[in-house]
């Protein structure tokens, strides 16, 4: 007769068989049996966070930067409710997380017991699936299924709620099934006909654009490789969503920069005027499309996505290919290569005029800003940070707001999995804990959180985690004393009524660094900026970098919400020029 294991032992057996090396968590009454078992499993390292939201974001950073699922362990009640923000964030951005939560013993469920909450009820809309394990004999099967659900198809978070008595109860352990049961949810059954149809479209187009997204990153490094080949084969211009940055080299000439609300002039105009739009692993988010009725009005639209429910959700497309980005693009590349008469050559001449037009848009230099000798411009700070770190294999996380957009615009990513940001949910406070997770996954790499002072205060306590595990993360705060993006919208759209967007009593970040036991660096003079950044990079340990920037700077270009792509508000230089011409406010 096989040995009976306790629920807690089974949890770790499963984690070992799923090759989990790190879990992010916080102990509490209802998970104590699992924490008690931790000491017997040296291959699994537990990272103690300071708040369960931090555990969730750290696991997200870990997953996004490594391609492996992030594992979270929290207690019942407040432990579970605190992790909800991170689960929702992971759900929106398709990050594979497996969250294990403790629950009160089964006989107390429903009695309003101490630290009880309806965890599976609360997390149902923010997970791909969740389970309440009421029978110890189901535990190993559920654990393995959880990893399968989290990592297959469009990835996402899952949650397993384990009552305390189940953690003590005993059962046989079952190994994971080799074959994956998909329950009719296979997402890789595209046909060669679809590929042929696409390749025919490619050969006819005169004004194409490729619009790639986070799906390329999620599909793995091979997808980025295939995408690069595809772009090279076709000679087409490519733009990327916020989540897709890094899939294609940011400094390549065929790359038009990010598109959407704070995307470049050339990318958005190309989206608007193109005759063929190829969406690869993106989901036509409202920050990308702007006004739906006027979105890319004259184009044939192709959508490649692993999630069938993404197709036609917002934008009707002419050709949908449901499949994994890696296999779809590889197939396309092969098909292009097979077609005779050197398709790529003839096609490149087809689109020469289109490139001329794009170069004209590029001349606008829409990411421009007026630099200053007196105050540090935030864009300048990001540019200097990029120049001083680009030779290292740097991982960047961000919080949410102006600094996030400046980072996306001015930091150029050349590899996938190097850019971790909260795009869908837009969670302020994501970046610092995410940096913790990234550094755990990549202990030798430079990890920087480009932060805003308002966002970073939301999860500041995780500095303590960084110090505990000696994680040399660099928190690069663009400190403008405002909730900058809120202030910008109030300036542009609410008649400068800066309602509650100014932080009156900010902490002294230098003293804060000292209090946490890490290094603090402060910069407020453009002349010293490079030296200070270098000092930050060279320091072997966590750093809080308080970069005082011009508080009145706005993030341009910008498409006001609800407007189409060709009605962008451009930066100060352009606004100045238009004033001289008597055109008034620039709505190009």
């Amino acid at each position, binding site marked *: 007769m096989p040995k009976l294991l306790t629920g807690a032992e089974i949890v770790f057996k499963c984690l070992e068989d799923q090759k989990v090396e790190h879990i992010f968590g916080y102990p509490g009454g209802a998970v104590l049996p699992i924490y008690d078992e931790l000491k017997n499993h040296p291959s699994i390292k537990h990272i103690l966070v300071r708040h369960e939201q931090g555990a969730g974001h750290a696991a997200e950073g870990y997953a996004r930067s490594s391609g492996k699922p992030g594992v979270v362990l929290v207690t019942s009640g407040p432990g579970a409710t605190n992790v909800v923000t991170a689960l929702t964030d992971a759900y929106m951005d398709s990050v594979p997380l497996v969250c294990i939560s403790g629950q009160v013993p089964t006989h107390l469920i429903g009695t309003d017991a101490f630290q009880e909450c309806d965890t599976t009820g609360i997390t149902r809309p923010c997970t791909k*699936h969740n389970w309440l394990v009421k029978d110890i004999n189901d535990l190993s099967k559920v654990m393995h299924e959880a990893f399968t659900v989290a990592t297959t198809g469009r990835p996402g978070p899952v949650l397993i709620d384990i009552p305390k008595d189940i953690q003590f109860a005993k059962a046989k352990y079952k190994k994971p099934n080799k074959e994956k049961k998909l329950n009719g949810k296979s997402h890789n059954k595209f046909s060669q006909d679809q590929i042929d149809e696409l390749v025919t479209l490619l050969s006819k187009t005169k004004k194409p654009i490729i619009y790639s997204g986070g799906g390329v990153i999620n599909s793995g490094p091979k997808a980025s490789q295939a995408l690069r080949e595809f772009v090279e084969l076709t000679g087409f211009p490519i733009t990327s969503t916020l989540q897709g940055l890094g899939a294609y080299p940011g400094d390549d000439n065929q790359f038009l920069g990010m598109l959407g609300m704070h995307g470049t002039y050339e990318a958005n105009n190309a989206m608007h005027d193109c005759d063929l739009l190829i969406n690869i692993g993106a989901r036509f988010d409202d920050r990308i499309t702007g006004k739906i009725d006027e979105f890319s009005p004259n184009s044939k639209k192709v959508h490649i996505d692993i999630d069938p429910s993404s197709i036609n959700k917002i934008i009707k497309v002419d050709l949908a290919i449901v499949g994994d980005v890696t296999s779809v693009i590889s197939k396309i590349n092969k098909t292009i290569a097979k077609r005779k008469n050197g398709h790529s050559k003839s096609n490149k001449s087809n689109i020469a005029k289109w490139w001329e037009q794009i170069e004209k848009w590029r001349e606008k230099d829409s990411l421009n800003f007026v630099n200053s000798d007196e105050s540090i411009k935030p864009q300048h700070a990001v540019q200097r940070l990029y120049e001083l770190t680009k030779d290292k294999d740097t991982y960047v996380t961000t919080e949410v707001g102006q600094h996030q957009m400046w980072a996306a615009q001015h930091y150029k990513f050349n590899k996938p999995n190097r850019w971790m940001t909260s795009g869908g949910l837009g969670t302020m406070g994501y970046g610092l804990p995410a940096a913790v997770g990234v550094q755990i996954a990549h202990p030798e790499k430079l990890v920087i959180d480009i932060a805003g002072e308002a966002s970073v205060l939301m999860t500041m306590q995780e500095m303590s985690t960084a110090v505990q595990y000696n994680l040399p993360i660099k928190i690069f705060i663009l400190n403008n004393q405002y909730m900058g993006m809120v202030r910008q919208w109030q300036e542009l759209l609410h008649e400068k009524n800066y309602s509650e967007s100014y932080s009156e009593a900010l902490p002294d970040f230098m003293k804060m660094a000292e209090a946490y036991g890490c290094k603090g660096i402060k910069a407020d003079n453009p002349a010293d900026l490079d030296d200070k950044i270098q000092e930050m990079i060279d320091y072997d340990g966590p750093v809080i970098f308080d970069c005082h920037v011009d508080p009145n700077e706005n993030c341009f270009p910008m498409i006001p919400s609800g407007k189409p792509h060709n009605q962008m508000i451009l930066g100060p230089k352009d606004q100045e020029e238009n004033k001289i011409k008597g055109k008034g406010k620039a709505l190009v």
Partner: protein
Amino acid sequence: MPKSKSAYSVPTKKQKPDTYIFVVWVDNEAGVLARVVGLFSGRGYNIESLAVAEVDAVKNISRITIVTTGTPQVIDQIRLQLTKLVPVHKVAEFKREDKDVIFKEMALFKVVGKRNKIEKCLNACKKFNPVILDETKSSAVIQITALRREIDVMNKKLKPLGLVSTSRTGAVAMTRGAKIFN
């Protein structure tokens, strides 16, 4: 209040919504109905009626029938989103006007009143296989099976004749002929 200059996305051209019937086969497990219903409420879809019961005790399968309204785009989304749920095995949907599908609902009417009024009620229900399930001197419980719309009509019609309480099952559906949903 001065007109706000604030920019935000506003809904634009709307398509006409139609009535559709969804049939969903799910694992009969705790919380599965909440997942399906939560998907509808969370994404702002309508539920006009809902009928659910286990149909295969061996395989542990329940069959959910949902009547909903939506534009073709919304209906597509409902199908695709339902299909993504882990305990969902298959999803079928069809238009209310579909001739190949039988679409029935059962209703119980309690009528209180004098004999002649109850007779009138029974007469009015004649087309819908009325069955008297309970009868006293001054009351009757009448069961009918009909289309949703027909039950709506009967419900109105019987009010002046002493209808005091209505209970309906919600629509269930089945294809005609030898064909089954796939």
